[in-house]
């Protein structure tokens, strides 16, 4: 493992995955690439923890999976957000916003 990337903050990986998948079904690499791009390279995920997290979310019933062919016709496992997953995303999003704005307020005060 190389240590050059900023690890995803503990507990936010689930939120990032759910959010990413709310746009469209994607495979593991697609999710990683999207997270990286959108965060402008701040977050880099390693495949081990990402795929493990996907399994966990799938077993929790928030995601479904399907083997499909990609554009260059290679079979890959695609993940789809379920209805419960959507609800979960809303809950987690609201939660995150609350925390983030609280932290932001605190930091403004300090400054």
């Amino acid at each position, binding site marked *: *493992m*190389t240590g050059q990337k900023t690890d995803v903050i503990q507990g936010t990986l689930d939120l990032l995955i759910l959010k990413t998948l709310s746009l469209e079904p994607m*495979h*593991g*690499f*697609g999710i*990683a*690439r999207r997270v990286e791009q959108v965060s402008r390279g701040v977050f*880099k995920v*390693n*495949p*081990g*923890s990402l*795929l*493990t997290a996907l*399994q*966990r979310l*799938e*077993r*929790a*019933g928030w995601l479904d999976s399907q083997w499909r062919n990609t554009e260059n016709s*290679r*079979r*890959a*496992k695609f993940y789809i957000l379920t209805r*419960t997953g959507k609800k979960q995303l809303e809950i987690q999003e609201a939660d995150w916003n609350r925390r983030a704005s609280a932290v932001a307020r605190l930091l403004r005060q300090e400054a």
Partner: protein
Amino acid sequence: MSFWRQVTYGLRGLLRRNERDREIDDEVEHYFEETTAAYRERGLTDEDACRAARQECGNLHTAKEEVRTYGWENTIRTLGADLRFAGRQLRRNPVFAVTAVLMLGIGIGANTAIFTFVNSVLLRPLPYPESNRLTIVLSELGNSSRAPASMFELYQMRQRSRTFDQIAGIWVTNRALPGKGDPEQGKAGEVTSNFLQLFCTRPMLGRFFGPEDDLENAPSTVVLSHQLWVRKFGSDPRIVGKSVPLDRGSSIVIGVLPQDFRLIFPEDSSVPPNVDYFQSVPIGPWEPNGPGFLHLVGRLRGAGTLAAAQAELASIAAEINDIGARTKVINYHLYAFSLQDDDVREVRRTLYLLFGAVAFILMIGCANVANLLMIRARQRLHETTIRAALGASTLRLIRQILTETFATVLLGGAVALLLGWAALKAIVAVEPSSFANLGHVSLDLRVLAFTFMIAVLISAIVALAPISTVRHLKLAEDLKRSGRSTTRKQSRSTTVLVTTEVALAFVLLIGTGLLVRTFANILRVDPGFHPESVFTLRASVPNYDVLREVQRALTALPGVQSVSTVSHLPLDDQGNWYDYYWKDGVSVDQQNTEMADMRSVLPGYFDTIGAQLMQGRDFTESDDAAHQHVALIDEILARRLWPGESALGKRINVSDSPKGPYEFERDWLVVVGVIRHIQCHTLTATVRPQIYVPYSLAPRPSMFMVIRTRGTVPHLASSVRKQIAALNRNVPITQLEPLSSVIARARAESRFLSVLATLLSIIALQLALGGIYGVLSYSVVLRTAEIGIRMAVGAQRVEIMRLVFAEGFLPVTLGIAAGTIWSAVSMPLLDHLLFEIRPSSPVIYLLSIVAIFVLSGIAMLVPALQAIRIDPLRALACE
């Protein structure tokens, strides 16, 4: 939904492991390919792209492994792997595995069997409705405690009691059985009409007795046992309402009892568990001085406690005394005991002792297994060290050891369950008399749980030993030493273990010695008669003439020396006849205080069973109602009533001549002879003195014929049966049985206990000796170098052997010392089981000490020989 997914996905992971792994591989590889492709798009060469991707994604295998280990099913899989590893380890060292499994198996198995007994005798409630409210009511009067009650007493108690909602009575007699087939003898229960309801919710067929059966002109009714109904009435479903012939007429069958109905009464009550049929007797005031023959059972009212019942019975006893029953007996009390407690009163202590003994065995077994595991952990120290060096975490190592220990213990538990089951079958097959009341012993779930609990507990304890070695691993040092040395601390802990084993085995040996000695003493007891070549059978006879006819007919058989008869066989304690007696000139208030066993006999009885006439004469044909009424008494009664003088010609008052079916009128009898006391109840205790009266004065419906033969007579049983049938007098008889088997039954319990104790001791000794042997031979292996050096510098073989023996005898001596103290404290607990030997018998102690020394010396011999066979050159070369 998500829980469901957890389960199904997990199961899929377990069952279709390869498929899942392949998917994961595929996914990870796809990720890697995409990463590589992305780098290639940025213009890197194939090779560089691949390298960059690898740098970004990390090790492919690590990633795969990380994804694979997700999920609960992996915990199970690791456990499985640990178990497989444990299995391999055990297979690699089968001697260890078999020894450990057997040691635990024997220990746990013995515990299971004994626990099953404790469970069915002490823990399980009696199989009766509201059995916790059932109590035994006994009276104490004069010098006899636990005496049966009279009908008068029962009537008075029922009139006065508030704490009991029912008080019922039973007495059991020997009678002819109704039904088809050969005439047969059986047990008849005479009960009050409220009796059966206390022991059984409802009959299988028909009804129980009720108040209507107590009415003056009520027809005679009978309730059949299930067994009798099947055997003698062909399970006739329409039996209720039919009339069957009974003793002196006929009775209407009103009900049949359920199959599992059995009476569980105290040992000394003469109420057997299986009674063939029941008839009811009305409870009336009767006369205050009537005979005591009823065994009472009361049911406490819902809120009533035993203490309240006891207090009430005390005041009732005072009132009964006042209104003149028992003619103002000095020491008259009534007592209530819980039926459950009363029943197990004697058995309880014996069971606890057995429990203690098997617990000892389990402890010895545990100590041995702990020792084995410790030795093995030390042997494997090198291997463990290497595994630790290769990166196995301490937690993983401990988990592995725990799994291995647990697997061993579980296997031991499985063996134990088998052994326990077999042991239980064996114990029940032997049927010791004190446990006769529990036909329903079976291994049950609680026992299983108990065994498993023990197994888990042991594995926790036993695992402590090897874990301590893992926790103290010092890698560098241990790798250098290559695990071939012992420390003082370790050898001290093995000394403690062996000392404990020897001490435990010693205590068991002392207890066994005492019990075996007791049995030997019981074997030597003179029962007061000579049972060799004497046979007996029970017969129902209507009157004196028929009895004499039977006697004459049997005497005429070839090979028969003499034939006589007695109402109650010695040492056959089911059904008894005893009553008050007093000698001439005793004041009224002293009259109903002393009881004697009463026996009705024909002339020639004492000769036939080989009893000894000490003074006077036997009965003759002319000792009947028309002549002077006479009796024979035993030496104990003679000494008690007329110490220092001859009893012959003196008068005693007893109940002899019959008035009504079961009552006897009081009359004076003249003593014409004194016989040696015959053991009537047990071989070890003299319960009551004896009074013999001629059958013509005291006819009884059922008699035991006793037949003495000259040597062995072929086909005696069938010729006896034919001879009696030829009389054509309708005399029902039981199987012919040698009188010696009655004695064997009386010895059964002591034999059972001494055999069991011997078995337990042998197991314990073997385990302890095995422990000594194991520890010493391992120690010899460890000290090979030392012994080699000693030999090289000129030590003699004797000195080397002395070295080994000294190491072995230290814990043995310590163990014997500890065991002696332990025994001195605990052996008095055995006192109630012992006969003619004191718990502190020095002979037993001495023998046990010698036995342990000699046996452990033998166990040490092999390691000692091993030591002197060490080749000094090779031993040193190894180092």
